[in-house]
């Protein structure tokens, strides 16, 4: 029965763009071509692709157990057996970096998941219902009174230093960004006629939000989430570097830099490799996010 009703209303339009003329490539084909043309998407996508491969193939790529100390091979320079050398306990740096990719990706996904879950819900509510707007946005103002890392540090200060708590802290600290972007996108979308039309035929609010509003703010969410991955990994690495995140022997990149910091004079390459891994990963997500924003920006279609 529900399908008949839907047919009468017409499925929610994918977005508020003009219908392309007959014979023109479909919207998706256009989008993919635009994405493929963007050098940022290509480079960023390539880097993120390599990261995902590393995550999937970690056991095959690693040359040693990343947490296995070997007192006889401390501070070995880069060599065939240890491509990136070994650390103060003789652990293989290359394998630590490889396994660290899994940790960094989980940090990104979990933190962004927390931020997106709360952020999208609150943003939808604030943008859609006037009565929720003021209280939600005032609460967000309070969160924004804590510049970036400070809120994460305060939360870790309360929960105690650990990788899990760092993810939670970074996730909570990233909520305001999501709320603001989703809210402003909803404010733009909800004045569209198809929202009024759906409401006029009696579509309930929950369904209206999920089927009509949310899909039309999805490009903003995708861009925010991609850029959010970069900042989440960066924040979590910073927390670990301060000793407030991942604890040894977890091969987290920021925690690896913390260890290397004590031996900077004798083994500087120990700091170089994890820093390079963080740098390239952040660069990849930033490029991908910026490229997606340019490709998804509806203003450029018209």
């Amino acid at each position, binding site marked *: 029965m529900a399908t008949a009703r839907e047919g009468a209303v017409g499925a929610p339009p994918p977005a508020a763009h003009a219908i392309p003329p007959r014979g023109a490539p479909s919207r998706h084909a256009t989008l993919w071509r635009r994405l493929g043309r963007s050098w940022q998407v290509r480079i960023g996508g390539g880097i993120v692709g390599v990261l995902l491969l590393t995550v999937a193939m970690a056991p095959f790529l690693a040359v040693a157990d990343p947490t296995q100390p070997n007192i006889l091979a401390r501070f070995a320079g880069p060599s065939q057996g240890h491509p990136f050398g070994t650390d103060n306990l003789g652990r293989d740096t290359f394998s630590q970096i490889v396994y660290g990719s899994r940790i960094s990706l989980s940090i990104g996904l979990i933190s962004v998941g927390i931020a997106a879950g709360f952020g999208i819900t609150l943003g939808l509510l604030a943008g859609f219902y006037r009565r929720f707007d003021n209280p939600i946005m005032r609460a967000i*103002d309070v969160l924004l009174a804590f*510049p970036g890392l400070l809120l994460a*540090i*305060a939360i870790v200060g*309360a929960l105690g230093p650990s990788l899990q708590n760092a993810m939670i802290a970074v996730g909570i600290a990233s909520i305001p960004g999501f709320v603001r972007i989703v809210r402003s996108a909803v404010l733009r979308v909800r004045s569209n006629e198809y929202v009024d039309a759906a409401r006029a035929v009696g579509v309930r609010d929950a369904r209206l939000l999920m089927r009509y509003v949310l899909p039309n703010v999805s490009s903003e969410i995708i861009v925010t989430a991609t850029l959010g991955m970069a900042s989440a990994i960066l924040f979590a690495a*910073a927390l670990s*570097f301060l000793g407030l995140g991942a604890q040894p022997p977890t091969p987290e990149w920021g925690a690896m*830099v913390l260890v290397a910091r004590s031996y*900077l004079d004798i083994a500087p390459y120990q*700091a170089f490799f994890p820093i390079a891994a963080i740098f390239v990963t952040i660069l990849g997500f930033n490029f991908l996010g910026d490229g997606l924003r340019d490709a998804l920006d509806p203003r450029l279609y018209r």
Partner: protein
Amino acid sequence: MASYIAGRLVQAAPVLLGVSVLVFLILHLTPGNPALAMAGPDAPPSVVRDIERTLGLDQPLYVQYGRYVARMARGDFGRSIRSREPVLGRLLDTLPVTLGLATVGVVWTTLVSVPMGILAAYRRNSLLDLSTIFAVLAGNAMPVFAIGLILLWVFAIQLRWFPLTGYESLRSLEGWRHIALPAITVSSGVIPLLTRLTRSSMLEVLHQDYVRSARAKGVRETAVIVRHAFRNALLPVITIIGLQFGGLLTGAFITETIFSLPGMGRLVVQAILGRDFPIVQGGVLLFAVTFVVTNILVDVGYAAADPRIRYG
């Protein structure tokens, strides 16, 4: 002007109230009992209960919050669990180091970003512009702690131009040698942002009619850039410089840790590692209040510079 400042203060009041509630809640809903932490794991339950009563931890949460605000208002931030010193005194001892670091950082950021942004915009698509864009992208992806360690390695360990760590008063030349690397480090997170903003702000202004008029009537090119274009591009730049003061304050956590500066950031980090909650609580609150106050000052300065804000 006075009414604008008053209005801005009124707006800030609920935010500050919210901040105090949040800081209070964050540290009171924590797993682990501070009284137990103070008494030690082997203390008999009666001792723990005594400490709870002394600290007021047996009271309902809203009573505790009320007392907490009342104590804060009197400047009583409690005592450090570790050293038993008053928290406020410890924090105020370290605050000048952090503020000094952030101030030198703001000046350095401005000195680097503003000329770089102006030149990049003026010579758009030149090699200089492209390398600026590249530097901005790279700077955005580089963690502050990585920059700090690289500077430390190159300039303190290899070249030995600057001391490794430590802090001296800025009244001496030695103090400036000590603050140089930390200031560059702390500003590295902000320079890309400000450069990009200056560049785009200048690009907008350079195409305005009054710039063309100035050139047409024969004003020297430097004067066109500095007096006609830059002065108008300056307003958004000032706002960001001010707002980034907060970013620099939090950059202090990492920078002070790397360079062992006795500032508030390092104090709070060490307090977290040592589970010294009163210091964490006071430090986070002081950081947030400093940030809110700076934002107000920026807004007021902005309104003083641009009458459109006051009456708009």
